[in-house]
């Protein structure tokens, strides 16, 4: 389905995850973050960039990858994105919902 985010029409799935990463830009990320009640800071963006880089490298995401990322530790990750951090961050990053159970 299609949705207008930050004035742009983008493809999303029924859970609101973008299905075409090429359509993503920072304004869209910001608008999704607002929907999730998250005030984006440089720290948030650092995590988002990391997730996008891993996605481009086709590395499946997990909490352990985050821990070993040297970008953010788990405690801060939960502080930045309190309600389901990996899912929320993936949504803002415009990448698919992580499929791992860890």
């Amino acid at each position, binding site marked *: 389905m299609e949705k207008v985010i930050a004035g742009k029409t983008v493809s999303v799935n029924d859970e609101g995850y973008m299905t075409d990463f090429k359509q993503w830009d920072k304004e869209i990320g910001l608008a999704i973050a607002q929907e999730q009640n998250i005030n984006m800071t440089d720290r948030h963006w650092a995590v988002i960039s990391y997730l996008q880089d891993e996605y481009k490298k086709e590395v499946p995401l997990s909490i*352990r*990858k985050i*821990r070993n990322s040297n970008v953010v*530790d788990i405690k801060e990750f*939960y502080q930045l994105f*309190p309600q*389901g951090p990996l899912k929320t961050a993936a949504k803002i990053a415009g990448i698919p919902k992580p499929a791992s159970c*860890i």
Partner: protein
Amino acid sequence: MSDNKGEVKKMMIILSKATLENVYAAFVLANGARMEGIEAEMFFTFFGLEAIHKKKLEHLHIATVGNPAMHIPTMLGGLPGMESIATTMMKKEMERIDMPGVHEFLDIIKASGVKLWACKLAMDMFHYKKEDLYDDIDGVLTVGDFYKEGAGEGTHMLFI
């Protein structure tokens, strides 16, 4: 009337066993809850205490006897070394799917905000002291205290 509508708010997970497959099930469920924005607390009782016992937690094994899913005869499962072989094989597979080791998993769930409680009765029974346990546990509780921790709407309890 409740307006909770069945939403899961908190998982209270009781671990009573020390076989690796049960310990991992409990950890994955606790971590999975936090990853979904659900609170989680764990209560380690009886043999489950070994999962937070500093000297024992890195030496947990999977069960090769009385475990039909192993698909080996029970007699063979009881031979010396079988548990080690099976555990080594399983650990290799776990590494492949990015499953952390027991200590690392404890670090992850603790940092994720999971509360870790040791059962007072089981501690007394096994003569364990708090110093014997993983440093970051939240405390030693009675069953009643653990139930109190679970107070509130949308709390679910799991016994493993």
